[in-house]
């Protein structure tokens, strides 16, 4: 299971991304998700988890040529302040539209989203 935890500050977000050592080669979608969320939302905390292996056998995935299909993202960003759950999800769906659009070659079939503001995240962490 590929997994990285990137507690990044918004100030260093871009610099951190470029210096993070991602597993070589095999994960273009994982890399794109990380980079797009970082540059669009300047998250203070970001975890992208590739759950694809867990779903490899399920109905809709049978016969799929894609390996990067299921992701779980936890994003903490000021960008979510004042937004409803639906608005937060739509914001992320918009940022990752290319990855999610199956009709245009996107491979991401399921995206689990936890989107919180820093204040909300502090509260749940305590």
């Amino acid at each position, binding site marked *: 299971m590929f997994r990285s935890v990137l507690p990044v500050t918004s100030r260093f977000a871009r610099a951190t991304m470029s210096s993070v050592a991602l597993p070589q080669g095999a994960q273009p979608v994982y890399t794109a998700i990380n980079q797009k969320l970082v540059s669009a939302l300047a998250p203070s905390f970001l975890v992208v988890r590739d759950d694809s292996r867990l779903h490899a056998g*399920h109905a809709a995935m049978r016969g799929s040529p894609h390996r990067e299909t299921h992701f779980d993202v936890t994003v903490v960003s000021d960008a979510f302040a004042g937004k409803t759950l639906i608005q937060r*999800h739509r914001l992320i769906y918009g940022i990752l539209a290319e990855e999610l*659009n199956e009709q245009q070659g996107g491979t991401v079939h399921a995206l689990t989203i936890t989107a919180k503001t820093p204040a909300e995240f502090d509260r749940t962490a305590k």
Partner: protein
Amino acid sequence: MLSRTALFAATLNRTALRAAAARPAVAPLMAMRSMSSVSPDLLQQLDKTIKDNDIVVFMKGVPEAPRCGFSRGVVQLIGAAGVSEFKAIDVLESDEVRQGIKDLSSWPTLPQVYIKGEFVGGFDIVSQLYSSGELHNMLRTHNLIPTEEKASE
């Protein structure tokens, strides 16, 4: 949280119902027609299904045998909230329905839950609404589950 929930419950009846009646449940149907690869008739039909049923779940598989963990999850959460009957649509039976509902709601993933014509969300959102008690409030406001008093009798 409490005040937001109370406010939500209080305003839902008047504002949301009127708003739901005044505008399409999700995206304007006319706009979707030009953008969607799905036939206008089908989009119309999906829109009508959403409006004509109290609770609609677009899911993979059927409630008795979901074929996706997230679909299973929303069915369980709705049941746990006290709902005994809802309209379920198996999107695995039709690629056109599967794409159509995504186009209609401008929401790229499934399952999708609709209550009284309004898009509520997918598994993550329904799960958070369940935990916060907002799902119960929403269902109670629309008389889709018994009020707490009745339930405890």
